[in-house]
């Protein structure tokens, strides 16, 4: 292998890496290129080195050859001169063999031209690399330093070929040792999840150890760690000086820093996460227990053309990277969808900063523009802004959160099908399902709740409900309340109205008599109203999935059945409650460092 080929290979590797840095390739192409480069480096490195060694030897041989040629030329000239001066004097062969290499013209013109070509190639590579690295975001000082060093080393190798082997080895070491950092930045630029980045780095480390073994591998690993630390973390945070803000390299470094900090924060917050997970698990267990003991009542969400509730949509920040001292502008669109136009929805807004593990940063609360409280009617929407003071947030990655607390109402109903017990028995004796005979299907027996943040299930046991004449028998209604929005949090009940159909009256809830809460409506329904304090007794636990058992008693069979063999009567539950939703956005507060001008 000639020196030109060796330089070309190294140049190709460098350009490949720089091209990757310039992000002109899609992610899959980058991965393929990485693999190809890895193969080149790990498997053909000895060949490259050998080639470079051969080139060096060839360079030496060429130098020697040139000297010999010059010497021969000198001998030839001398012989001619001698022939001219002393035509009769015989020339002894020994006089030609003792000629030493001439030292006054060690390199020939053609060799100089060849080396000039190499210098030109290296210069072009250097210029291209400078351009690419500059556009990737490397500050000029660092760019010149790095490119200058590499180009200088290659230039030395060309000028002084014996040094080429050592220099190329040194360049290779630099690239391999910094490979981890390169992978890290690429993964960060591509917004790869932390897991993928970790896997890629792991593969790289294994490859380094497999290639260089024990101590050398350890050195590479240590070098990479130091480089990471200096680049991404305090006290140096070198990426803020080395890379231009908002450049691909800067964003890549910042992404990786955020990922690392989030991971580290999670590790630090493990006890809290375990506790939180425990609460979720408890809630799931509570649900399973209710299902197992038959106390979990289901329901289906009513089909509405619009989703009902209060929503924070199109949430974002004007800039995800904010220098310390610059205000953070978080924006969102507050939307309310409800049917009750006569009752306004009161929405309280709040915004604040959180640590990466979701803990509110004290004193970080921002100011909501144009106002922090809204009274919304149906189908209304307002753009809002929250201005936070970045000085209240520590430098580094954090979250800003906007929170809407509002009162909302959910209604649910369940159709109860009542039949005289004798009629049910008669159908049973005929082997027929009474409700099927009347054209009633299973979906008519399921509770329906209105869309919103609360799920309300209801059940009456097996239907049809038998009615025993001349008795005060009434069915027991089960009502299950459950959080319907995973992104929201139930705060508290404000009011609950349970309505029994005409002919029935509510006797007690969970065994507690409730005579003072109930009254007959003009439609002869028996309606019981419960306010906040009384509701707190029904829902003492923080775990929210809860079933209330509503005991009823018959008041009038005539009112209930209305002289028909089958009566369809609805139970209704209407609840008003306070609910909270919030949306988070990731931000990074940058330190106020003097930027190195390009």
């Amino acid at each position: 292998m000639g020196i030109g080929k060796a330089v070309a290979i190294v140049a190709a590797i460098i350009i490949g890496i720089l091209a990757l840095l310039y992000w002109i390739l899609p992610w899959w192409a980058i991965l393929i290129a990485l693999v190809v480069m890895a193969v080149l480096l790990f498997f053909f490195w000895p060949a490259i080195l050998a080639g470079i060694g051969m080139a060096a030897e060839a360079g030496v041989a060429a130098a020697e050859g040139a000297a010999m040629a010059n010497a021969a030329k000198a001998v030839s000239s001398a012989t001619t001169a001698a022939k001219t001066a002393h035509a009769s004097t015989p020339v002894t062969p020994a006089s030609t063999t003792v000629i030493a290499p001439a030292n006054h013209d060690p390199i020939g013109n053609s060799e100089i031209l060849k080396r000039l070509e190499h210098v030109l190639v290296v210069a072009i590579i250097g210029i291209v690399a400078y351009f690419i690295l500059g556009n990737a975001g490397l500050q000029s000082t660092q760019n010149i330093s790095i490119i200058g060093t590499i180009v200088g080393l290659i230039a030395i190798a060309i000028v002084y070929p014996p040094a080429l082997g050592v220099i190329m080895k040194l360049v290779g070491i630099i690239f391999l040792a910094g490979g981890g950092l390169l992978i890290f930045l690429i993964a960060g630029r591509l917004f790869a999840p932390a897991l993928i980045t970790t896997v890629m780095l792991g593969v790289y480390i294994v490859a380094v150890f497999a290639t260089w073994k024990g101590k050398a591998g350890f050195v590479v690993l240590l070098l990479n760690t130091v480089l990471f630390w200096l680049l991404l973390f305090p006290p140096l945070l070198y990426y803020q000086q080395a890379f231009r803000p908002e450049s691909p390299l800067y964003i890549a470094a910042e992404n990786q820093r955020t990922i690392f900090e989030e991971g580290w924060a999670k590790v630090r917050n493990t006890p809290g996460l375990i506790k939180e997970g425990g609460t979720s698990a408890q809630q799931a267990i509570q649900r399973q227990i209710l299902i197992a003991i038959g106390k979990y009542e289901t329901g289906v969400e009513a089909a509405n053309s619009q989703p009902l509730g209060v929503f924070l949509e199109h949430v974002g920040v004007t800039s995800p990277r904010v220098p310390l001292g610059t205000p953070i502008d978080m924006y969102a669109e507050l939307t309310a969808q409800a049917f009750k136009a006569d009752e306004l929805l009161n929405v309280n807004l709040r915004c604040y900063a959180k640590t990466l593990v979701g803990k509110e940063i004290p004193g970080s609360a921002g100011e909501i523009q144009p106002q922090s409280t809204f009274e919304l009617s149906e189908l209304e929407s307002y753009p809002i802004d929250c201005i936070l003071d970045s000085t209240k947030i520590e430098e580094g990655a954090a979250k800003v959160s906007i929170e809407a607390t509002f009162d909302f109402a959910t209604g649910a109903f369940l159709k109860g099908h009542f039949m005289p017990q004798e009629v049910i028995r008669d159908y049973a004796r005929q082997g027929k399902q009474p409700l099927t005979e009347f054209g009633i299907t299973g979906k008519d027996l399921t509770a329906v709740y209105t869309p919103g943040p609360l799920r309300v299930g209801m059940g009456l046991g097996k239907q049809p409900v038998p009615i025993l004449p001349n008795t005060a028998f009434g069915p027991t209604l089960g009502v299950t309340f459950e959080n319907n929005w995973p992104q929201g949090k139930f705060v508290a009940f404000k009011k609950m109205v349970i309505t029994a159909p005409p002919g029935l009256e509510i006797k007690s809830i969970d065994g507690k008599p409730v005579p003072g809460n109930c009254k007959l409506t003009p439609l002869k329904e028996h309606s019981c109203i419960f306010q906040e304090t009384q509701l707190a007794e029904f829902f003492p636990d923080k775990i929210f999935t809860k079933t209330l058992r509503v005991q009823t008693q018959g008041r009038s069979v005539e009112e209930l059945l209305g002289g028909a063999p089958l009566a369809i009567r609805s139970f209704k539950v209407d609840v008003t409650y306070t609910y909270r939703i919030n949306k988070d956005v990731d931000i990074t507060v940058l330190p106020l460092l003097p930027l190195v001008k390009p």
Partner: protein
Amino acid sequence: MNKFVIALSLFLVGCQLGGTTPTPGPQFYATGTQGLDVRVNTLSNNQLFMCEEGEVLLDLHNLGTSDIAQGIYTLTIEDQILKPVGKTKKQGSYSLEGRSAVNPVGGYTQLGFRFKTNNLPAQLETYQTPFIFNACYPYATSANIPVCIDPTRDPQAARSCKTTPVSGKGGQGAPVLVTLVEPLMVVQDNAVLPTFIVHIANAGKGRVVSTDSLGFACGNGGGTPSSKVRVMAQLQDEQLKCLPEMVDLRQGETKVTCMSNTYFGAAEGRANQGTFTTPLTVQLEYGYVTTLFYPFTITRLAHQEDCSSTQETYTPSTVSTSTDRGINWPPRS
């Protein structure tokens, strides 16, 4: 010559003898398995807005051969959502003539029910609620099955008919029918006592109840639940003894044995009449329940809160019993 004879023959065949012969009308056959047919008239509206009034028109048509006297109906509706208005009542009665030679299409009536929708539960855009019409009426099946009486004991003797089972699967103009009659000639001395095994089944889409349970079936509290059919049979003016006299059709097809007390054949000093065919008349009496399910869909208009501001309108219920026919008349079976 031959042509002349043929032409003369045709002329003579085309001639009628003097005098006026009445033109026979369409023959009436008591067939089919239908009784009261209840259908929703296409003028009915089951897509309503909240607080709006709507009307359901039901076409009642007696497609069977028995008259319906004092049939009753009950409506099952969700009173909290649908409120009857005007003269609409949740219970009522009707009478309809059955098909016969003089009224081959059967009696028809139309019932109208007007409703106003109440407030829907809060925050619901649409709501579905059923309208269930339950018609209970007394009905009867009169089956005339030709049976073969064979008092001849000689197996080699010539017979005009054979005592084979007779099917009644085509129906006898009522939902409960005699599906099969198996004649048995019980031999005593030189004569036979005809005995018939009568198979009875409900082939209609409704439910059989006892006549005295009709009130109970339609929810007015009268009677007790029962599903018995009274069976009576007659052969040549003789009332046969049927066992059991009351049958329960809840388990499907049921058999009744009806026996004659009259000896046929060479008995009591008279000569053998020989083999002959005679109708066996089986009379079944029962109550029948027909149910119609008609779902209403009620939609809340945008910005609509409650019906308190909507003025209630009064429109009298329409009940007509006449030859007026709805759009979908006659009903297609």
